[in-house]
């Protein structure tokens, strides 16, 4: 199954993550990775979600819905973010290795 990546730069408000996650749930997307963090700009956070993508149409609808949210400043999507995805894979690999070592001990 293909994967879709959405990166949203959002205003820091405590409801914004709830809103985005509710959207994913409503559109029945399964989250593979979720990364939220501060940016260099005060009061702006970056949310990156990797989802299992069923159809291109469904994914495009999700992107439009994310763009529509009031706190969302702008959105990047899709394959141009391959780099981010690769980084996620690395982090995952790194962490699972650590966990495995820990369990063996």
């Amino acid at each position, binding site marked *: 199954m293909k994967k879709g990546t959405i990166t949203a730069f*959002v*205003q820091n408000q*405590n*409801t914004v993550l*709830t*809103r985005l996650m*509710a*959207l994913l749930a*409503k559109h029945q997307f399964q989250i593979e990775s979720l990364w939220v963090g501060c940016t260099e700009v005060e009061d702006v956070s970056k949310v990156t979600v990797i989802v299992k993508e069923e159809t291109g*149409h469904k994914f*495009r*609808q999700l992107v*439009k*819905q994310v*763009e*529509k*949210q*009031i*706190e*969302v*400043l*702008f959105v990047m999507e899709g394959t141009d973010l391959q780099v981010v995805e690769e980084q996620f894979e690395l982090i995952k690999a790194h962490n699972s290795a650590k966990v495995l070592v820990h369990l063996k001990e």
Partner: protein
Amino acid sequence: MEAKEALAILSILATEEVTGNGEDLFIQSLKQEGVEILFGYPGGAVLGIYDALYKSPIKHILARHEQGAIHAAEGYARVSGKPGVVLATSGPGATNLVTGIADAMMDSLPLVIFTGQVASHVLGTDAFQEADVVGMTTPITKHNYQVKKIGDLPRIMKEAFHIASTGRPGPVLVDIPKDLAADPAVPLLKIEVDLPGYQPLSDSDPLHVKHLMEALGNSSKPLILAGAGVLHAKASEELLLFSERYNLPVAHTLLGLGGFPAEHPLFLGMAGMHGCYTANMAISECDLLINIGARFDDRLTGNLASFAPFAKVAHIDIDPSEIGKNVETHLPVAGDAKAVLTAILNQRAKNQDLQSWLEHLENYKRDYPYWHTETEEFLSPQRLIELVHKHTNGDAIVTTDVGQHQMWAAQYYAFSRPNRWVTSGGLGTMGFGFPAAIGAQLAEPEAAVVSLAGDGGFQMTLQELILLKEWNLPVKVLIVNNGSLGMVRQWQETFYGKRFSQSVFSLQPDFLKLAESYGIKAYRISTEQEAETLFGEVLSDREPVLIDCRVNPAENVYPMVAPGKGLHEMIGVKT
């Protein structure tokens, strides 16, 4: 800030005692937004706000249930075009609003909803009457806020009104913890809306309009499908000009009714599940479908696989996320319906000869109109709506719930101008219509307002009857009484082997005595003659009245696109 606004604020400050806490700030902000009516219900977490309201000239309508308050606010918003404002307490007060919030979200109605919340130091402790209102309303609001410090309140209120009423309208909720509202606060003179992530569209891309005009110039079977977006944008006049300039036939969605005059020769009728044959066949046969402010809801499209199979689809919508959502769109035009139609009117498309297309549709109109049978024994519900139309000169504000009576009203009450039709479309809410009629009457005190309700739906919000007496609102409540949940019964009859599971009431209240106990005149009719006589006497009165209209309990709504079928496969068409 505009100089005018600054002056307005200064004048408020100059003329009134500013005691300087959040509750007073709240009232001042409402005044600045021009709020005249508040629909609400008090409770523990909003005692302070109600105390501030005590001294204020803002009219407060005390509903008897929060659901009644919010549906009334929806009716007010639908008719006036201004945001309906609701105030309720925390916990159960707020949860009772949820149906109305979801309803307003689906039908794009501007609402600003204020809920009290438990004091901030006990938030998250399951305190008395605590509920996570922001959490539970997130998926059903255009936006929502919880106030964290009182200094933010004026900005949040300004933003709430701005968001609710601009772009695609919708409900915005503001949750205010009790302690914050009581905090001392200094009124702000300079309030800035700061919403970099919210830039509602106005003008459209000229290139998109150009492509649309080219497609129009090449079309020999064009059709306009006009939705409620036309009403929200106040673009009825532009729609009429556009249609007349190129001789374009117009079909409406359920919520769009009134956007184009029903008596106009180019009007085909309502499209969709219980729409008219002509409109549905026009969609099925057209080669260019111009959707203006409709969202291709499943009740409109029927089976998507056979929807508008020969058409290039153009879609004008203020909400870009609607374009291409359900139906593949070849000509997207994102923008406000009025702005786009104005741009269209400023251009010229090649005029096509549409004579044979229009004649073809005319034949459909003549051969397959809405039809119903009338019996000696019963009052026909369709005839009932025709008589309401006759005795209100076709110009009443008509409100409904969802179901059979709603479809008959949509089919038989021919609306000739905008904002007369108040119905729960997207969410399909029983109990919506009667309180909505109260809000509509408050928005237009001089208008004739008819609340058409089913006997089922009416029993969901009938406690608001007292408001008719209390505020002397001359709403005419017509209960289209078939002793059952008509649409459920119809589907059980048609698709569930006539097993009428829980859809027929074995016992009903005496609606006349009920109305009398609220001090409202009431009548019962069961024949056409009785309807004719009574409507002539009471529908133009300036007094509220309730009429229990006993209609044929076996009557079904036709024609119909059965579930899963295409628009061209209507059943129950006149033969």
